[in-house]
């Protein structure tokens, strides 16, 4: 009996030693990366493709790394709400001790969660936040998603040139940080371009019936409907607008929330002609992008969207920063490397961060044509 005990204790001690010895050896060459996406809730449509894009990037980087620097990803779901985002950030930063965080999906969540990372000094790279006031949180907060402030003016300028817009209606969700700040940029741009705003109509998150507002809009007979909404509401707006008999010549011009294949899938025929400014278009012919679209389509049996592309690029940017800094566990060194990054080749094009740690790369304008996003040319 006694002998058995001793053997047992020896075995336990041995096991503990191995367990204690193994992780440091591994983590020295793997970046602990926390990835926070909305896998459930209102933004689940975006979170799902973001996760896929990030997974593909991690897989390819680790396969190519050989004995070199790898990524140890930890995926978490923020459920599209800031409260859950806060829980997840606390777990990743204090529990898992991640070196860098990618995410969260929504600007609304980022505004609450990112101060936690800033306080402790963990670099955060947003891959889909486009509202104002995100990177202003602090010097550890970055994003590779072009802000509405860059994309929208470009979209409106092109749309005005090609469609000769004179008077429009502004329609937006007024209880969400992202849709509201999008509407602010639209309003400013419309004023700068000298396009008259006939009226402003708003809706709330979770609304399903937009017919009262759309009926008012129809009666005002605008040249176009300028709309800041997330894809769930955007789909309802687009299909109900056409059902109410607003003609297809009245284009619907959307912000970043419209930029998802889910819009085309949900609204179907009604989505034809919708104009969306974007950071990325699937038909871009750079070799890196062609390979990404190919690999993604092969792996998931459907083409990627912008959110997948930005998440894919985000993982690469964080990885390249760590590589340039020559570290897998120094948060500050990785942050400094991100600041210095210049002209990095990504699926989004030549990429750098601005002085304010926002994305710097060329935007595109696209429209829906025969069920696909293509570059807008009237």
């Amino acid at each position, binding site marked *: 009996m006694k002998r058995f005990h001793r053997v047992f204790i020896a075995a336990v001690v041995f096991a503990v030693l191995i367990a204690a010895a193994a992780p440091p050896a591994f983590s020295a060459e793997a970046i602990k990366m926390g990835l926070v996406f909305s896998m*459930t*809730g209102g933004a*689940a*449509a975006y979170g799902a493709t973001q996760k896929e894009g990030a997974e593909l990037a991690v897989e390819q980087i680790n396969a190519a790394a050989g004995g070199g620097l790898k990524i140890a990803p930890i995926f978490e779901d923020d459920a599209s709400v800031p409260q859950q985002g806060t829980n997840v950030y606390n777990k990743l930063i204090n529990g898992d001790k991640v070196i860098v965080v990618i995410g969260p999906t929504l600007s609304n969540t980022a505004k609450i969660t990112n101060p936690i990372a800033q306080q402790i000094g963990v670099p955060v790279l947003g891959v889909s936040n486009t509202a104002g006031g995100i990177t202003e949180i602090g010097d550890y907060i970055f994003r590779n998603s072009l802000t509405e402030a860059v994309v929208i003016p470009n979209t409106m300028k092109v749309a005005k040139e090609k469609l000769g817009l004179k008077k429009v209606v502004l329609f937006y969700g*007024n*209880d969400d940080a992202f849709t509201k700040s999008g509407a602010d940029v639209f309003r400013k741009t419309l004023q700068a371009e000298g396009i008259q705003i006939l*009226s*402003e*109509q*708003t*809706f*709330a998150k*979770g*609304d*399903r*019936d937009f*017919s*009262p*507002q759309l*009926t*008012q809009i*129809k*009666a005002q007979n605008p040249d176009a409907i300028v709309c800041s909404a997330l894809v*769930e509401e955007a*789909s*309802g707006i687009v*299909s109900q607008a056409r*059902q*109410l*008999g607003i003609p297809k010549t009245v284009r619907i011009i959307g912000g970043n929330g419209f930029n998802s294949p889910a819009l085309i899938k*949900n609204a*179907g*025929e009604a989505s034809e002609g919708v104009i969306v400014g974007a950071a990325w278009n699937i038909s871009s012919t750079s070799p890196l992008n062609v390979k990404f679209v190919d690999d993604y389509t092969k792996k998931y049996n459907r083409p990627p969207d912008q959110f997948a592309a930005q998440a894919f690029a985000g993982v690469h940017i964080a990885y390249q920063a760590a590589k340039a800094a020559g570290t897998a566990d120094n948060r500050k060194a990785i942050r400094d490397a991100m600041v210095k990054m210049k002209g990095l080749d990504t699926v989004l094009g030549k990429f750098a961060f601005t002085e304010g740690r926002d994305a710097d790369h060329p935007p595109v304008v696209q429209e829906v044509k025969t069920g696909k996003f293509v570059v807008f040319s009237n």
Partner: protein
Amino acid sequence: MNLLAQQLVNGLFIGSVYGLFAVGYTLVFGVLDILNLAHAAVFTLGGLVALWLVQTAGMSIWLAFPLATLFAGLLGLLLNQVAFAPLRKRADSQFSGLISSIAMAIIFEAVAMGVFGARSVRFPQGTVSVHIWHIAGVTITSLQVGIVLVAALLMVILTLFIQRTRIGKAIRAVAESERAAMLLGVNVNGIIASTFFISSALGGAAGILYGLYFDALAPDMGRSIELKGLAVIILGGMGSIPGAILGGLAFGLSEVLTVAITGTSNLRDAVAFTMLFAILLIRPSGLLGRGKMREA
């Protein structure tokens, strides 16, 4: 003028869905004096099951609609058996039934989430072919007309059923007095079960119509209509079927007009519920409520 007419049509349409939903609430309340708070979950499941039948089983909506309605009715029987019947002997059965129906609602919603996922899902394109009519500047789709007609038809059938048939008369007898009905040889438990069946079937039908029109079904969609349904039956008069219909229409119209006038949906619920208070101040028993007569 066209504008107002169009908004009235919009309100009529959403109001008829509210009415159909609320009739299910009011039916159970009228008979049992119990609020069935799982009604909204049955509404959701009705819509989701119809979607599943169309999308996965490849049925036409004309077959899927009655089947999903039937399924919702069966859920009602389950509700009665699990959440209400075991508690009926208790002195506090009204309150405990209310709580256990909340529990059932949570279970139903969790099941819907597990089976259908958290995302909004949609009926495939072309499930119902939509024609668009322009009449005197007012745009109406065949889908809207169909939904109002189905809602109206179901309500007419229900009214005739309650007034003319033997079961309907028995339901009214149980509503009047359970004990007296039992003494007269009415199978009270059977009548309560059939009330739940009818109520839930109507709730499920409302869910399908709602899903078809708004084209966005999600496990939590019942929550958006749950409170409105309660407000509608209070507005119309607790237990009154025509009251629920009238209340639904009034609620739908007030919502649509509020949004149309203010240009925002922020005040939508505030105005609707303020109107509810105002009407209750003038008519405490609701629009078509019968006051305390039945208590005697």
